């Protein structure tokens, strides 16, 4: 183990390498690392922000869906209401129409019956007059017995 001038040269070599490192290695490496750290921080912040925005968007979408659902329910309710309204209306109309037709038919029937009764009555009167005249063998004066005949007819 000799102590010799290797010491000095080693020392000079060390200074040169340290100087190299300080000049050419350390600054670009640290710069790149710091920049990356910054970018990562920015990226994380951006992702946080995006997450929050996503939450907000989700809330909005939920709100809108809820509103749409409510609206749809309302529309369906209205439609079913209208539907039953229409059905009721139709039912009422039908009933009115039926009643109208029934009463018209009844009127026709009663009219026809009255007419038939009148005809029957007059023919019965004629028949009665005819029958009576046959029986009495003489002409019944229609005018003289009008009153009697009318009474008879009314009794039929």
């Amino acid at each position, binding site marked *: 183990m000799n102590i010799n001038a290797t*010491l000095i040269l080693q020392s000079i070599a060390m200074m040169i390498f340290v100087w190299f490192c300080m000049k050419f290695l350390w600054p670009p490496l640290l710069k790149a690392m710091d920049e990356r750290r910054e970018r990562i921080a920015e990226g994380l912040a951006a992702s946080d922000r995006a997450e929050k925005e996503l939450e907000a968007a989700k809330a909005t979408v939920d709100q809108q869906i809820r509103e749409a659902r409510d609206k749809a329910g309302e529309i369906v309710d209205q439609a079913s209401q209208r539907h039953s309204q229409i059905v009721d209306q139709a039912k009422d109309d039908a009933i009115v129409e039926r009643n109208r037709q029934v009463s018209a038919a009844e009127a026709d029937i009663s009219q026809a019956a009255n007419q038939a009764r009148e005809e029957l009555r007059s023919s019965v009167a004629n028949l009665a007059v005819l029958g009576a005249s046959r029986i009495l063998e003489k002409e019944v004066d229609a005018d003289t017995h009008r009153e009697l005949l009318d009474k008879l007819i009314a009794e039929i």
Partner: protein
Amino acid sequence: MQNLTFGQHADGTWGLAHSAEEATAMGFWAFHVDTLFWAVVLGFSFYFLFGSVARKANSGVPTRFQSAIEIIVEFVDTSVRESFHGTSKFIAPLALTLFVWIFFMNFMDLIPVDWLPWLATQAGVHYQKVVPTTDVNATMGMSLTVFVLILYYSIRIKGVGGFIAELTGQPFASNSLAGKFVFFLPNLLLETIALIAKPVSLGLRLFGNLYAGELIFILIALIFTAGSGFIAAGLSSLFGEHIPAWFWVLATASVFATLWLNLQGKLDNKKTLWLLLVEMLLVGGLAFLGGQLMHFAWAVFHLIIVTLQAFIFMMLTIVYLSMAHEHH
């Protein structure tokens, strides 16, 4: 283990020393060529390794390699921020350089101790120590540079007067002039010792740990050589008196190749075991296996030492320079 020393011979000519005695006779003005060579090579590999990342460094998605480099930079940066309470653009690069460079130099210890010297011998160089941090000149060279930095920052921050006051005004403090006069010398003595102890302990700690680590590798190698004497005798009959180093390199390589093939799934475990057994019997029997295991165990432990010592050197440098920046 002898360094390759370049210096002035006794006859006045300059050249490489041919023996330890010659190297010692060269005195102070001699250079350990191997230490400096490996230190500079490793320094440049640090520079190019980190430079290849620094050149392409951007804030986009990093490659794996870039991430690995950045982890080291981040680690050093954090250490500096935690321990150094001043503002300096110099301390962090200094710490990074010291940490990685010393780690690389220490790491050379994990390359089997005779491979590179053997290669050097093949190239005609007979002395070669490949771990610069096992040379006290290298470690002291670095710690003395740190010492100079301590002095420089102490004086720049506190001024010459402040620095002298720090050296003479403590640990025995007095408010009276007489007291100051009395305590002047003891304080100066104690503080100077404390100051000098910093670079000495810094350099010798690194040197001692690495030198001891290397010695233990050599010790294990010697034990293994003694144990495998029987097989060695057989091998000697094959190769002559000296078994060439390439044989050991080949043997180790074949073991690693077998293991590698097994890891690749090209050899099943049973075949691997048999092959390993045959290879080990061939080159040194169970002593070889024992030697390998001991080497492996020590290498794993040494890996911790290697990293830890690089870290300690870096941390202490930061702490010392931080102290130099602080007013007391």
